[in-house]
């Protein structure tokens, strides 16, 4: 397989081009996605190629723009709706939670909502409390929604293709700090199946589960720990719903130690739920309590040193692994 290095944002852009080429029912809609090509250039070039009927700029009316996507989806389209920041998705919760997530069931299977909501989240470059959140737990909690959070260009492209092809609503959360990261992407078309975890690094001593921008950070920590003789296995679930428990549990049974790293605040987070599954399914294999390294339970402050104190850093992850292994 021939690969070339692509930016995360360009890998996403390729996925959109391919999906729109392949299927005339796929269309993109959102604030500033057409003329401007998106704030992070993910939708760049789509307008020129597919025209204003399928690449649509909208007013700032998130709830109704997502509602528009829902209505188009139940009538045979495959909308890819962009919400500029995951923080703004709070404006569209009724359309996501009460409509998109429930229509398939409420209609007894008559209708389905093949909608992708693309958005980006996480702490970035000091953009303060309303533009820095990691809100994935809100969507994780809602039956009927799938949840994808890619960490590499390869995963981003393959998962976006899978998300667009999926017959249910998919929340696809990119990370603002990952757009300019680079990685190998095949020349050929491919799809990464939803619900398949990827082991980003193998190791015998500890299983570390992380996603999105906590993956590069955890890999950096694993490298440092390796120099000290501790081999950490880094697993990226890639999709939080559906979740590939099998890959995680297989690893846990080998390493007997677990660290879960999430950028989101600790309270009510996905890490806690993953931990509950591991303790239920693999309790006898655990050699120590499961360690969770997570964001502080606070809105993200503006000051850079304060902001960085609120989310896991490489040294926090290193310390977390050591607690898990040596406690």
């Amino acid at each position, binding site marked *: 397989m021939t690969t070339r290095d692509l930016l995360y944002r360009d890998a996403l852009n390729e996925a959109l081009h391919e999906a729109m080429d392949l299927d005339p029912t796929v269309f993109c809609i959102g604030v500033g996605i057409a003329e401007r090509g998106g704030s992070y250039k993910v939708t760049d070039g789509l307008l020129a190629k597919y025209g204003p009927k399928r690449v649509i700029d909208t*007013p700032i009316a998130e709830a109704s723009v997502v509602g*528009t996507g829902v*209505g188009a989806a*139940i009538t045979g389209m495959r909308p890819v709706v962009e919400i500029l920041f995951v923080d703004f998705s709070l404006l569209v919760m009724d359309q996501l939670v009460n409509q998109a997530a429930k229509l398939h*069931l409420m209609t007894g299977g008559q*209708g389905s909502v093949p909608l992708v909501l693309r958005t980006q989240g996480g702490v970035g470059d000091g953009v303060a409390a309303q533009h820095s959140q990691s809100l994935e737990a809100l969507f994780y909690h809602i039956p009927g929604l799938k949840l994808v959070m890619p960490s590499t260009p390869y995963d981003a492209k393959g998962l976006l293709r899978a998300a667009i092809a999926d017959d*249910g609503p998919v929340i696809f959360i990119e990370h603002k700090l990952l757009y300019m990261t680079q990685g190998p992407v095949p020349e050929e078309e491919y799809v990464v199946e939803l619900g398949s975890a990827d082991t980003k690094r193998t190791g015998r001593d500890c299983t570390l589960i992380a996603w999105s921008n906590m993956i590069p950070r955890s890999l950096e920590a694993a490298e440092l720990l390796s120099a000290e003789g501790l081999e950490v296995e880094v697993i990226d679930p890639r999709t939080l719903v559906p979740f590939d428990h099998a890959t995680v549990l297989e690893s846990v049974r080998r390493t007997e130690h677990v660290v879960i790293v999430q950028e989101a605040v600790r309270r009510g987070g996905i890490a806690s739920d993953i931990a509950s599954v591991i303790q239920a399914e693999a309790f006898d294999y655990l050699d120590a309590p499961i360690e969770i390294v997570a964001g502080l339970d606070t809105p993200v402050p503006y000051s850079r040193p304060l902001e960085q104190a609120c989310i896991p850093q490489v040294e926090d992850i290193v310390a977390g692994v050591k607690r898990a292994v040596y406690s």
Partner: protein
Amino acid sequence: MTTDQLLSLYRTLFTIRLFEQSCIQLYREGLVHGYLHPYLGEEAIATGVCAALGPDDYIVSTHRGHGHCIARGGQIERMVAEIIGKETGYCRGFGGSMHIADMETGNLGANGIVGAGIPIGVGAALGATIREEERVCVVFTSDGAANHGTFGEALNLAAIWNLPLILVVENNQFAVSTPIDKSSRVADLYRRGEGYGVHSVAIDGNDVVEVLHEAQQSRQRCLDGDGPVLIEAKTYRQAGHHVNDPGSYMPADQVAHYKAHDPLLVCRRHLTESGADPSQADAIEAEVHTAMDAAVTFARDSPEPSVEDFLQFVHDAAGGSR
């Protein structure tokens, strides 16, 4: 309008009326649980609007949606079955009264969230436009929803994209229990459409002929590419908000006024003017009674949905994983 056309409209009006009365009866018997919002007094709106539609058109309904489903050609036996939670219901008993959808007739579904259907209708109209299909989408909504953010947002989207959308505001004068003059400084809600550049009209929502004519014109306007239309259909909810709300806050003189202007009476007057004999309408009522009895029997005799089938449905919907 011919007598036959009027009789056809009367059949739909009476079917909705009898359907709601029968469901209220079933509720009193304890067969219906949950909420049930009767469309009593508003029947002419769904009847007139849906009579103007083509087979490919979409409708988006509301929590007070039985009338829309019936007028669009829904099967009353599957509706009753859904409302009493049976496997043979439109939604296999997964939805209930507030979520009946009938995709085969383009009925994209009732909705338990006031105002939420409006953008969904915009999306249906947008999709049809992208696919270059000749369809319109009717969104039934209400005076209550007119104060919701989605009303303005979605109306604006329909306007800027020039969509084939007909927004039918059923102004029944109450948002749950709050009268219109307490929730809007402007009694004529159609005027809100003008602010978005949407062609907007107000009509007597209790006169099925007037509703039909306006809906036909609106549909043609949409198909001609002239963009969305807002129709404010003025009506009155002849009962409480839901089946267990006696509506004691509704002024007696107001109720009496609108009962004298009941959609069925208005239609019967049109029939008389067209030269029809009252017995023709009576005969229709008898036929509808028979059909309704059969629908109730069908629903009563239908099985409950099985937990196993439901769990399989959930499993399949999740893509086979947790």
